[in-house]
C-alpha cells in the first residue's frame, strides 16, 4: 500500500477543509494534507455559482467559486498539499491513520498526528419525509439538480415544482427560471420560510414564483417521467388535508427538504455523535470524543452561512495543528453546554476550562421563530452573557460569546427569552 506521512490530515477539500488547512499551516503545522474525493477543491461551493457568500468575512458579496477561490489561492501560497480523486474508506483514530482509494496511487495509507473531519453534509431525500406516489424520472434533490445544471451542462427539466423553501430550493428556483424553465411553485410544509428572507425576495418574488406555505406534496404522478404532483394544505399537526388536494402539472420535482451531516466515517471510527445535530460531539477547539480527531463545518452541524463554517474550521485547524505539535492546551476542568428555552442545540457541546480565561462563541439554532428576544447564557445562577436580537428564526444561526472564567458548576445554559 502506498504510504504518506503528514502532521495534519484533513478529510474533505470544501470550505471547511480549506479553512482548517490554512489555519493549521498558519499555526505552524509543517505538512498539512487535504484528501478530497472530487477532481478539484471547493466542495459544494463549486456548484453554488450564486452570490451571497462572504458578506461577514470579506464584507463583500461573493459567489461560491470566488469564495473558495480565495481560500484555494491562500492554501497554495502557504504550501498546503492535497490529494484529489481520493475517497477515504477508513479513519482510524487509535493509530491516526486514514486509508483512501485513488486511481493513480492505488490504496493509500496516510499517517497523521491529528485528523480533521470536514466531509460536509448530504441532502435529505423524498423518503425521509414520506411523499407517496410513483417513482418516475424527474425527481431530484435540489443539490443534484444544481450539480447537473451548473457543473455538467445538463438541464434537468422544463416545468418544475419545488418542495421545501430551504435556501438551495429557492436558489434553484431562480437558476432554473433564468435558464428558461418554468417554476410553477415552491411548496413549504411549515407555515414560515425555511431559508433566508433575502432568498425569498431575490429568488421567488423577483420572478413571481408562488410560495405555498403550510402545504405539501401528497402524491407524485407519472410512470416514466413525472407528469404532475398533488399539492394539499396541511393542518396544525402538519397532516395534509386531502380533500383540498389539487393537481399541479410538472415534469420535474426538486426536493429541498434539509441537510444531514455526513458522518459514516466518523461513526465507523467510533466517534461520539450528537443525536440532535447528527454530527460529532465537539468542544470549543472542535475536538471530538477522540482527542486526535477534530471536526468542522457541516459535518458537525448544518450551518446557514459559509462564513460561519470558515470561522469554526479555522478553530479546528488551529487546534489540530497544536495537537500535532504537542502544544495542545491543558484542561483543568470541563463545562457542559445545556440547551434552555427555545434552543434546539448548541455547538460546541462542551467547553474545556483551563487556567487562562478564553472567550468562547456558542453557536445555536432556535426551535421556533420569535421577535424582540434576548439570548442569555446562565452559569451558577448568574447571567454570564446576554445579547438582544430583533428577530430569530430556525433558518438562521444565533451566536453568543461567553468568558470561560465566569463559568461555574461545570455547566452553562443558553436560552432565548422574551425581552422585558
Amino acid at each position, binding site marked *: 500500500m502506498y504510504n504518506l506521512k503528514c502532521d495534519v490530515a484533513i478529510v474533505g477539500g470544501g470550505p471547511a477543509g480549506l479553512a482548517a488547512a490554512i489555519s493549521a499551516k498558519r499555526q505552524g503545522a509543517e505538512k498539512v494534507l487535504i484528501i478530497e474525493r472530487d477532481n478539484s477543491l471547493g466542495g459544494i461551493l463549486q456548484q453554488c455559482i450564486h*452570490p451571497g457568500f462572504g458578506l461577514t468575512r470579506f464584507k463583500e*458579496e461573493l459567489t461560491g*467559486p470566488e469564495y473558495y*477561490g480565495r481560500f484555494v489561492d491562500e492554501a497554495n501560497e502557504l504550501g498546503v498539499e492535497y490529494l484529489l480523486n481520493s475517497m477515504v474508506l477508513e479513519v482510524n483514530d487509535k493509530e491516526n491513520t486514514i486509508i483512501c482509494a485513488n486511481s493513480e496511487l492505488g490504496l493509500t495509507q496516510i499517517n497523521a498526528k491529528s485528523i480533521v473531519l470536514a466531509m460536509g453534509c448530504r441532502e435529505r431525500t423524498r423518503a425521509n419525509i414520506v411523499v407517496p406516489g410513483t417513482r418516475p424520472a424527474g425527481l431530484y434533490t435540489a443539490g443534484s439538480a444544481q450539480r447537473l445544471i451548473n*457543473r455538467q*451542462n445538463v438541464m434537468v427539466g422544463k416545468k418544475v415544482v419545488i418542495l421545501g423553501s430551504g435556501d438551495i430550493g429557492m436558489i434553484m428556483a431562480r437558476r432554473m427560471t*433564468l*435558464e428558461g424553465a418554468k417554476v410553477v411553485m415552491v411548496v413549504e410544509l411549515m407555515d414560515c420560510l425555511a431559508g433566508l428572507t433575502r432568498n425569498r425576495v431575490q429568488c421567488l418574488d*423577483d420572478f413571481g414564483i408562488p410560495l405555498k406555505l403550510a402545504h405539501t406534496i401528497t402524491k407524485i404522478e407519472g410512470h416514466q417521467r413525472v407528469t404532475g404532483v398533488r399539492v394539499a394544505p396541511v393542518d396544525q399537526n402538519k397532516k395534509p388535508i386531502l380533500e383540498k388536494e389539487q393537481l399541479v402539472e410538472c415534469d420535474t420535482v426538486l426536493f429541498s427538504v434539509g441537510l444531514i451531516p455526513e458522518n459514516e466515517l466518523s461513526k465507523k471510527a467510533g466517534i461520539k455523535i450528537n443525536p440532535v445535530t447528527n454530527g460529532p460531539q465537539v468542544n470549543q477547539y472542535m475536538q471530538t470524543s477522540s482527542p486526535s480527531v477534530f471536526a468542522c463545518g457541516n459535518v458537525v452541524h448544518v450551518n446557514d452561512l459559509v462564513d460561519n463554517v470558515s470561522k469554526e474550521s479555522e478553530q479546528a485547524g488551529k487546534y489540530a495543528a497544536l495537537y500535532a505539535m504537542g502544544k495542545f492546551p491543558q484542561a483543568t476542568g470541563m463545562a457542559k453546554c445545556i440547551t434552555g428555552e427555545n434552543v434546539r442545540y448548541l455547538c460546541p457541546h462542551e467547553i474545556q476550562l483551563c487556567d487562562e480565561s478564553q472567550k468562547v462563541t456558542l453557536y445555536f439554532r432556535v426551535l421556533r421563530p420569535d421577535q424582540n428576544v434576548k439570548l442569555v447564557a446562565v452559569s451558577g445562577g448568574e447571567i454570564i452573557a446576554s445579547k438582544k436580537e430583533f*428577530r430569530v428564526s430556525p433558518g438562521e444561526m444565533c451566536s453568543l460569546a461567553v468568558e470561560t472564567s465566569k463559568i461555574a458548576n461545570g455547566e452553562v445554559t443558553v436560552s432565548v427569552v422574551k425581552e422585558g
Partner: protein
Amino acid sequence: MEKLIICTVCPRGCHMTVKGDNGVVESVENYSCPRGLEYAKTEFVAPVRILTTLVKIDEKENELLPVRSNKPILKSKIEDCMQVIKTTKASLPIKRYDVIIKNVCDTGVDIVATKDLK
C-alpha cells in the same frame, strides 16, 4: 402608489412601506437603519441585482464557466442580459475576474468569470 419592501440588507428583514409615484419616493416607513432606507429607495425606483449565471466554453462540451456581473444590474435588464450571455462563448485559459462580456447590453456593467479554468 404604495409598495411593501422586505429588506435584504441584513437578516433582520425589516418590512418597509414605500410611498411615491413615477419613480419619486415620497416616504419610507418601518426602516431601522440608513442602509435599509437606501435599499428601500433603490428597490422602489430602480431595483438592481447581481446577475450570476454560466457561459459556454469553446473547448469543453460538458463544463460551463460560472460568471457574474461585476456590479449590480438593473432588474429590468436581466432578461436582455441573459439572452446575450446565453449566446456567448468563452475561450480557455480563463482567470478569475477576466471580463467575458464588456458593458453587457449597455448597462455599464461587465460580465466576469468567477473562477480560474485551464
